[in-house]
């Protein structure tokens, strides 16, 4: 025989614990932040240390438009989740689609920037320390955008095929945490690479 302690609780307090999805995503964000910190530190450490050009000043241009797209996608995603919570599936789908489009514009912008850097300016990851740190940091961020975008597209497909209702609002909350994180990282990458680094 074994005993399980069950002592009656006079106060009968409600026993509410934080949600595991949110906590899990928070942990993932902390771990990811640490990875980004290391890449950002490497970028700052090697700023101006490269032997030979091209230098950031010569080749980098401020990606203002794509930045605005990415940052506003946080807002559209937020509205999508708000819509879902109110059971407005149409609004959810529309805002989510807008988010996906904005994210895709950002990625296309990065792709065009890289194309220009590689084929016009002759800067690759092998060229110098600037190339090494630039492509790895921006590339790491772009990888995260791609992952986030794939998940958003999956959610959009579920939404369009009618598999989403307000019960899933919570899952979308967790997913949007990730997307907001990716956007927040871009603010730091943007500041370091395009503002301080130039």
């Amino acid at each position, binding site marked *: *025989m*074994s*005993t*399980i*302690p*069950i*002592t*009656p*609780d*006079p106060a009968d307090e409600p*026993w509410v*614990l*934080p*949600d*595991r999805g949110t*906590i*899990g995503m928070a*942990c*993932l964000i*902390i*771990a*990811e*932040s*640490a*990875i980004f*910190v*290391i*890449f950002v530190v*490497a970028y700052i*450490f*090697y700023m101006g*240390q*490269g*032997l030979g050009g091209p230098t950031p000043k010569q080749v980098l241009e401020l990606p203002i438009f794509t930045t605005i797209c990415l940052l506003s996608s946080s807002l559209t995603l937020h509205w999508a989740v708000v819509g879902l919570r109110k059971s407005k599936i149409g609004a959810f789908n529309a805002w989510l689609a807008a988010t996906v489009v904005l994210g895709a514009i950002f990625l296309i912008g990065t792709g065009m920037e890289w194309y220009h850097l590689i084929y016009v300016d002759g800067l690759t*990851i*092998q060229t*110098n*320390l600037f*190339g*090494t*740190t630039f*492509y*790895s940091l921006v590339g*790491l961020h772009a990888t995260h955008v791609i992952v986030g975008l794939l998940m958003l597209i999956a959610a959009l497909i579920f939404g369009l095929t009618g598999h989403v209702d307000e019960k899933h609002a919570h899952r979308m909350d967790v997913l949007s945490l990730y997307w907001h994180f990716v956007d927040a990282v871009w603010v730091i990458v943007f500041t370091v690479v395009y503002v301080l680094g130039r």
Partner: protein
Amino acid sequence: MADSVSGLSSVEAIDLTPVEKPRQLFLEVLYDWVTTVDHKKIGLMYIAYSLIFLVIGGIEAIVMRIQLAVPHNTFVSPQVFNRMFTLHGTTMVFFVGMPILFGFGNYLVPLMIGARDMAFPRLNAFSFWISAFGGFLLYYSFIGGSGLYGAGSAPDVGWFAYAPLTARVFSPGHSTDYWTLSILLSGIGSIGTALNIVATVICMRCPGMKLNRMPLLAWLYLVTSSMVFIAVSPLTAAQIMLMLDRYVGSHFFDAQAGGSAILWMHFFWIFGHPEVYILVLPAFAFANEIIPVFSRKAIFGYPAMVAASVGIGFISLSVWAHHMFAVGMGAGANVFFVFSTMIISVPTGIKIFNWLATIWGGKIRFASPMLFSVGFLFQFLVAGLTGIMLSVAPFDWQLTGSYFVVAHFHYVLVGAILFMIFAAFYYWFPKATGRMMSERLGKWHFWLMVIGFHLTFDFMHIPGLLGMPRRIYTYEPGRGWEIWNLLVSIGAVIQAIATLIFVYNLVHSYYKGEKAGNDPWDAWTLEWSTASPPPSYNFATTPIVHSRRPLWDIKHPEDPDWNYE
């Protein structure tokens, strides 16, 4: 509900009869284990896997000790010796230390907080298999290190793999790639498991188990797992950079193109030093559970223990550069890291003193788990004191990179962590298998281990003080190193014998051990309230707790713990 006069004094016991399963075919059993998402099975797989690597890493240590037993020995070539210490270090840290502690965490945390499983069971299985694959990759380098025609190569860059030794030009072939990949994968596994443990501890506690009522083990696993996010991620990032360097031709650590060797050191030790605490905090966790039970007293100063653990977690993130006192940092940086390193001895001291106070006034039973815990207390004390010596930067200029350092960190990793892991085995084996481990073999194991350990690691300090650097495959006679190296080597063999006795004890007791019952140690935490081994659902009814020691409350209804908390 039974009588309920005060409402608090009554407890209910629920009968749980474990269900006997019919015997299964071998393939069915295998399928069960490979596809399981049960935290207990995954925990046991972690433990089994790290025990295999413990034996492999041990063999590598023995090879090194045979080579160093006498000067100018030619037992192995320098190349083989260099591979041995690289594999030994990497294996012991990444494929023994981390997985075995995660294994215990996986097994124990849900049971001790009254949960049915981890927060994310499928992530749990994923993390395990990806770590296991990492370990496999490390040793695959023996086959694929320089292509199939050059079989037999293995990483030889040292476990901290200082740049630019890892650059393609200095480490051609693929063995370093296997090293990088295996650590990258095990890092992903570690982060996954850590995330799972944090989410479990925060979100899966049974009713009544407030944070200040959690068993200290759960607290320490919470702290250690949180540290994994901040410590292991930088290593993952650095490994990505290294792989970019080796495969794509970037220049992070390429000295020819202006890359910095120092940057790798920083990145590695930002991981490397907290890693020591990631490994030692679970050992503290075991001590926090075992010492009170075998002293028959509640842990002394529970809030101080929690505060000290959290404090160690934070401070340990700011001490990494004490591994770099000799790389030519400025005086200011050296002074800072001396201070941060020394200050960590304060919370560590609090822990030792609290254990001492827990023992004080108790009724100590010296069963095997307690014997190993006692060994841990003394050895951890010495490890802490040699740590203070190393934190004094000028003293460290002499000691770093010498055998003194090797002795110091083995005092932590073997004398403290491995001893507590053994204690945990003896303590929780009955819970996991339903059978006791042999006390007689346990005593043999303990005493041989103590003798072997002290022969090896006490005497290993001395050649360091006499100027013997680490990682040398041979040495000149006439510097006063010979006798100490011989004693160290003899001690290593004794430790190996002790470990084999332990493995035999595990296997033998699994089949032939005395039946344990649910609560063989008369303990107080929730895992002892369910059957041994626990059913797959852990608890038939979700427990409700009111104090830190729920089973104490049941056993002593006249004087329950909640009156004192």
